[in-house]
């Protein structure tokens, strides 16, 4: 049994479901935009210049958006009660983990393709696309972090009571380092002259986070579904 074939089938399944129902990504994008707007209203009157904060606010927003998306990640399996079908098939649990992580990664990337250039207008100083490019690299690394830890925590929350509440409680504290680093990397390149050594430091940190959480996930994911 080829693991690659299994992985591709599971990812294709998630994308097909998303394309047909369009439930998750559209809601994530709308949520991100609404929340950015609310944060702007909450923080300032018309006179204040929020430019310095907006990069950070964007990552706070994306973190909450991630919680929303990750919370939807097993919703078809749970509501349509399909999970047993996957679990009795000879799929290694780590392949299930990888497929879910890839789906979350793609959802987050899809949201950011819209949100980052849009919000970037409000805080990027200096050459616009240059800064957006560097931010995009940090964002992809942050997405890997979000996807890996999110898959693990959504698996843990799946069969708990009040799972919609449990997931943010588990997931957000673990996301704090990601938000700090992604916002730091954004800040380093958004203010005109780039501070590339700072940007590199934050990106390396994100990479380390992704590696560490992939190790933890691979080591523990068998146990998540091992009733």
């Amino acid at each position, binding site marked *: 049994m080829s693991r690659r074939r299994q992985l591709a089938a599971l990812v294709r399944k998630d994308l097909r479901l998303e394309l047909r129902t369009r439930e998750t990504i559209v809601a994530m994008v709308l949520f991100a935009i609404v929340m950015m707007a609310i944060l702007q209203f909450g923080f300032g009157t018309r006179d204040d210049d929020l430019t310095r904060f907006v990069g950070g606010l964007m990552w706070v927003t994306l973190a909450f958006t991630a919680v929303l998306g990750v919370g939807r990640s097993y919703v078809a399996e749970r509501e349509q009660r399909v999970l047993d079908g996957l679990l009795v098939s000879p799929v290694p649990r780590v392949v299930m983990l990888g497929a879910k992580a890839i789906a979350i990664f793609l959802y987050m990337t899809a949201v950011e393709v819209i949100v980052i250039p849009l919000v970037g207008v409000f805080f990027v100083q200096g050459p616009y696309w240059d800064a957006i490019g560097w931010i995009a690299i940090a964002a992809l690394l942050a997405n890997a972090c979000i996807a890996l*830890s999110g898959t693990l925590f959504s698996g843990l929350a799946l069969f708990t009571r009040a799972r919609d509440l449990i997931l943010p409680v588990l997931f957000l504290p673990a996301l704090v380092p990601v938000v700090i680093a992604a916002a730091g990397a954004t800040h380093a390149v958004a203010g005109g002259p780039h501070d590339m050594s700072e940007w590199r430091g934050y990106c390396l940190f994100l990479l380390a986070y992704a590696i560490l959480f992939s190790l933890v996930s691979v080591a*523990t994911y068998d*146990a998540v579904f091992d009733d």
Partner: protein
Amino acid sequence: MPGERAALIWGVVATILVVVSTIGVFLVAPEDADQGVIQRIFYFHVAIAIASLVAFAVACVAGILYLRTRDARWDDVGEASIRIGLLFSVLVVITGSIWAKASWGTWWVWTDPRLVTYLIVVLIYAAYFVLRSSAEDDRRMRYSAIYAIAGFASVPLSFYSVRVAESFVHPVVFTSSGANMPGSMLIWFVVSQAAMIALFIALLEVDLVGRRSERALRRLALRLENA
């Protein structure tokens, strides 16, 4: 019972060490030239912080062992360790806050990496108990074990994420080249550290003795019910 004897011995050891270190720290150790008497809180602040990390490490190892053996006793060790570790972390935040008030005149400094990190650590491990209370039996133990492992991976990440953008306003007592303090201070630091770790072990043993008898009682009740 060996468990009770261990609890008693560690209780005595911890009591002696705590008394000795308190006397040493307040009466014997030399006064810090710059900071005066408030610097003495450092002995407890740092010792408790390290002891709490030891507790979380023990919980992580107990989690790994639980997943290997599925023996409920490892779940007991894990939960008791995190309970004590969380208590210690709260003390770290409180003592750190007192120190901040004395040094800088304010209870909370968001730019101080140590305070902020420990706040994240408190949040991570508080979530452990939320997770525990929303699942039952084997699932509770399994999820707790996985979370104890993932949580311990989050701790160093929180440390580094806060320090990537380090602002060194906090008095640095340790540097990477070793302890930056006179030998007489170091001795009392080592004694307080030993006291806090002994305190952790004693609390853990007492907790485990309680759980063991509770479990035996429950088994007995079940047997009576079935008879």
